[in-house]
């Protein structure tokens, strides 16, 4: 009985950190699907979002919800500007130019954050910090539950946005066939910048949701590597795929930490990724049709 509770606990904790990976992975995937670029600065954008929320909530004493939403808006605006001012210029250049550019941006973000906020870990009070809820005898941390609930909610909102709104469907259209989207009068560049904005906003949300269980610091963006594994496991193509990939990585990590010798926890995401690449290289949710039919 005790053991079953422990295992459930591990699953919930793993799912919670997995949701964070999933949210960052989602940002990778949205941008990749639209522009065939991988934004290696995605984790660092989460870090900036976390610091933005920290400043608004801990320094300016804004209520958690107001500060959080404001931070998401600010980070989304940063994502938009990043694409409109910088990324757009390397479209059509070789892949490595894009890789170097986003890696370099990551360095700049970390250095900038170090200058602005220092290198110490910081945190802020959230409504979920150090609280538990009791679900039928199972005691869970509200922080974990809030992460899972927030992720599920966000996925629902994104699903409705991409399938029901005109701009959302146009984002899908521009991702599937850029030239045809131009022919339809869709302002493709603006649409791509908006996708960068959404990815950045989602990364910021990940940073905010993460803050009750982990401090914010300049190097938190290294989570991006695990998120990248999550994206590949999910097939690098679908929103549910990314989140499920993230949850798999998160849960495996928890169990590796619990059962296996020290050290395995850190590398477990890479091991899962390697196994995945051997067994099913296209990922769990690879789309059956190619990008162009």
């Amino acid at each position, binding site marked *: 009985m005790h053991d079953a509770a422990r295992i459930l606990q591990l699953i919930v904790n793993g799912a919670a950190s997995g949701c964070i990976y999933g949210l960052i992975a989602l940002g990778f995937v949205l941008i990749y699907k639209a522009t065939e670029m991988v934004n290696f600065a995605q984790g660092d954008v989460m870090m900036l979002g976390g610091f933005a929320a920290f400043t608004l909530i801990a320094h300016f004493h804004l209520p958690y919800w107001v500060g959080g939403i404001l931070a998401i808006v600010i980070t989304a605006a940063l994502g938009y500007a990043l694409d409109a001012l910088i990324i757009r210029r390397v479209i059509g250049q070789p892949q490595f130019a894009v890789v170097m550019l986003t890696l370099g941006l990551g360095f700049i973000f970390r250095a900038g954050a170090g200058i602005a906020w220092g290198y110490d870990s910081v945190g802020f009070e959230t409504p979920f910090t150090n609280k538990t809820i009791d679900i039928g005898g199972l005691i869970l941390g509200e922080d974990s539950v809030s992460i899972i609930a927030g992720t599920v909610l966000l996925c629902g909102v994104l699903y409705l946005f991409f399938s029901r709104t005109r701009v959302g469907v146009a984002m899908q259209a521009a991702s*599937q*066939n850029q030239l*045809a*989207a*131009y022919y*339809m009068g869709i302002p493709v560049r603006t649409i791509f910048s908006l996708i960068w904005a959404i990815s950045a906003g989602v990364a910021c949300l990940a940073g905010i949701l993460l803050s009750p269980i982990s401090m914010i610091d300049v190097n938190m963006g290294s989570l991006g590597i695990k998120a990248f594994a999550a994206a590949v496991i999910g097939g690098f193509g679908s929103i549910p795929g990314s989140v499920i990939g993230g949850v798999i990585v998160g849960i495996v990590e928890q169990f590796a930490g619990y059962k296996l010798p020290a050290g395995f926890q850190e590398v477990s995401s890479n091991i899962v990724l390697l196994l995945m690449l051997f067994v099913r290289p296209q990922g769990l949710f690879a789309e059956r049709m190619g990008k*162009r*039919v």
Partner: protein
Amino acid sequence: MTEPILRVDSIETFYGPIQAIRGVSLDVDRGQIVTVLGANGAGKTSVLRTVSGVLDPERGRVLFEGRDIARMPPDQVMRLGMCHVPEGREIFPFLTVRENLNMGAYTRRDPAGVTRDIELCFEYFPRLKERESQRAGLLSGGEQQMLAIGRALMGNPRLLLLDEPSLGLSPLLVQQIFGIIRRINREQNVSILLVEQNAHLALQTADFGYVLEVGRVVASGDCETLLRRADIQEFYLGQKEAGARGTRRWKKKRLWN
């Protein structure tokens, strides 16, 4: 004479160092169907791309309703009332048929009109109605061509650019689609610039024709006149055997690729 809806004035277009268009001029009068014929690699697609703004001409002008649009991006050209049905259809494979049609109407702000025009598309292409909520990537080639034409119509164009609508379709389906192209031209009063390799059918459908060879216009005239011209019959209508010139060009193209 009123001004033509489209006037292409000695355009020259390059792909990097390769010159695809070497000074092409053509007019489309209001209400007309004008066809551009030519062998593979003659530059037909490049002309349409230059007109709709995907390619910028190095020299020359493209006047749409009197306005120079030569260096305008394609989404803005479309907003002026010109829709392009590209070579190879270029539908959105993961969107449903209806979503594809809705994307064609992306720039419009009249939902009632959009709903009405979707019905109109379904009237022209009943097959699309049957597959309304199916992913467009699962349609047959012919159905995708119908969808591409319908999607362009959703933008309420005054000028429609059609790039080889017959490509890869059965003769029967080609006849059907060309019938509908004629109907669209008459009933919706849409002027059409039609690029085709199927010269016979194109000349029967259109009012005026241009023949393109290696980036230049080498012949033009009323379609009836063109249909009777001996050299055109020889090279494009397959009246005599395919001809040494055609074969040679084909080989040349193969070498370059």
